[in-house]
């Protein structure tokens, strides 16, 4: 069924967990509308609510605080777009919020939503990051004012894996009376996340980054947090998101989270071992490499590495031909020549951003695959560097 090859692009998406697949196939015939009062509806409702409980308990929330959404992107957009709500009864409107703070390394769905807010008249301020991709709490303190309504900072970065001090950020934001959202799409299921401990007001997660189905996400909405629906027209999700529930997706997400709660600990340990071996292999076999991201506060599965003088898309395609799937931050492959905004934000030169690849491991990767990668990569990089105008210069 699945294309042959070694999949090391788990930050893009993850293969579905066999248990999730089993449960989804089993429930495929469950077609009832969870809002219906009859037995068909009640059955569906029960499974949806069970999934909600699983999601809630995994992140330390209560079930009423979990809203299912069509994707992580939608959940993020829901939180951000509420800021400009003009309805009299909306908390944001009452507070006269006209400023938000986010970071320069957010996922495009947050950056673009922020840009749109700016066009709607909101002042958007951006937190810079240091060379490791960390935002500075001091800068956050400086930027926060009584005008700030919302702060949104991602928990873990999708390209370089850097993990932010979310608890510290939330504390500062709350001191100033603002609301805090974190995009934890890459974090939930990979590292322990507890919304009470972190004290966040909103948190986004997504099914397909944790071996669940695509097209399903969830938003944690802390009780009492100012909320305004993005999608109107129904009472579903306590009026927070209209539309008949994606029952199968929700059930899949619930199962995926249940599996994460069982496997996260052992996976984390194993992934760290695999990543350490990979990093060592690269360091020992390829000269002039630079690892991007934080050395310790980093997702256990993510390794971003820049090979001097080698262009990222070429690396990806040569590896693809060798049966290895990784990805690049430089978006040439997707039709634009812009180098990764995340790597540029860390202050590394554009060449690094153009020459970096993201290796993101998952629960299915094995040490044999790491070994194969370590055997293959030096050959590929060597080949590209042989024809590189940049690497030539460096050797002179």
């Amino acid at each position, binding site marked *: 069924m699945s294309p042959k090859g070694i999949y090391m692009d788990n930050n893009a998406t993850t293969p579905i967990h066999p248990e999730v697949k089993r449960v989804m196939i089993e429930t495929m015939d469950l077609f009832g509308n969870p809002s219906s009062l009859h037995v068909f509806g009640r059955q569906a409702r029960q499974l949806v609510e069970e999934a909600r409980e699983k999601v809630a308990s995994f992140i330390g929330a209560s079930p009423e605080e979990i809203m299912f959404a069509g994707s992580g992107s939608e959940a993020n957009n829901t939180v951000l777009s509420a800021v400009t709500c003009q309805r009299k009864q909306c908390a944001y409107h009452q507070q006269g919020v006209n400023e938000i703070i986010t970071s320069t390394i957010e996922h495009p769905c947050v950056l673009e939503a922020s840009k749109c807010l700016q066009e709607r008249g909101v002042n958007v301020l951006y937190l810079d990051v240091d060379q490791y991709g960390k935002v500075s709490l001091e800068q956050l303190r400086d930027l926060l004012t009584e005008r700030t309504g919302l702060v949104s900072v991602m928990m873990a970065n999708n390209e370089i894996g850097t993990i932010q001090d979310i608890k510290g950020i939330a504390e500062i934001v709350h001191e100033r009376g603002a609301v805090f959202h974190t995009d934890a799409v890459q974090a939930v299921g990979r590292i322990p996340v507890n919304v009470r401990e972190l004290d966040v007001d909103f948190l986004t997660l997504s099914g397909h980054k944790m071996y669940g189905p695509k097209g399903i996400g969830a938003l944690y909405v802390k009780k009492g947090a100012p909320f305004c629906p993005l999608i109107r027209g129904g009472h579903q999700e306590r009026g927070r998101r209209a539309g008949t529930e994606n029952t199968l997706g929700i059930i899949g997400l619930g199962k995926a989270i249940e599996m994460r709660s069982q496997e996260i600990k052992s996976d984390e340990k194993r992934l760290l071992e695999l990543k350490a071996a990979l990093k060592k292999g690269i360091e020992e076999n390829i000269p002039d490499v630079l690892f991007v991201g934080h050395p310790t506060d980093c997702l256990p599965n993510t390794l971003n590495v820049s090979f001097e003088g080698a*262009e990222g898309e070429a690396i990806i395609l040569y590896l693809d031909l060798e049966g290895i799937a990784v990805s690049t931050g430089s978006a*040439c492959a997707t039709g634009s*020549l*812009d*180098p990764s905004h995340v790597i540029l934000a860390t202050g590394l030169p554009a060449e690094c951003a153009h020459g970096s690849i993201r290796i993101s491991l998952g629960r299915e990767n094995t040490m044999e695959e790491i070994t194969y990668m370590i055997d293959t990569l030096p050959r590929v990089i060597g080949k590209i560097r042989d024809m590189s105008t940049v*690497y*030539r210069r460096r050797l002179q």
Partner: protein
Amino acid sequence: MTQASWAYTDTVKEHFMNPRNILMDEDSYKEHGKGVTGNVKCGDEMIVVIKVDKEKGTIADCKWKTFGCASAIASTSVLSEMVKGMKLDDAYNLSAKDINRELGGLPDHKVHCSVLGDKALRMAINDYYVRNEMEEKVKKEEERVVCKCMNITDQEIEHAVLEGARTFYELQEMTKVGTGCGECEQEVTQLLETYKTKHFCEV
């Protein structure tokens, strides 16, 4: 399940896997002409060197190097094969379209990556003329008419891009390029991308 289709043709893939005529012996190569174009900061750079058969006025050898993506690699590899034995004038007039045809077509969004090779080649040919006191033969890039119908040169297109044109439609509005037979659309679009990259690649 069928193997997901590779976004590039077999020819592109083949040249990407086995690029021809890479300049490995740069210091001892003793080229007769050299062209360098692109910018590493924008994610691509190209060097093309040539040796010329002076009696015949043809290209005897062509080698290259790049910091570029698969399209840049494949298209320059193809180009380096195409031009061997070719008259300097003919080689100079090769367009991205000709290379693209030889490659069996590139995905649209990758075409811009492939124009570096022929540009560097033209620079190498001009460089050869300069080195051999044939300055009068040096052709200015901007002299190339791209749209025959409207008599629009690439310099005019570059100018329009600098003036803010970002789409083919905007170029048409500003210069009338491509409003005749329409044959030049692909090449104009390529130029548009090249100039956007050249002038507006955000770093």
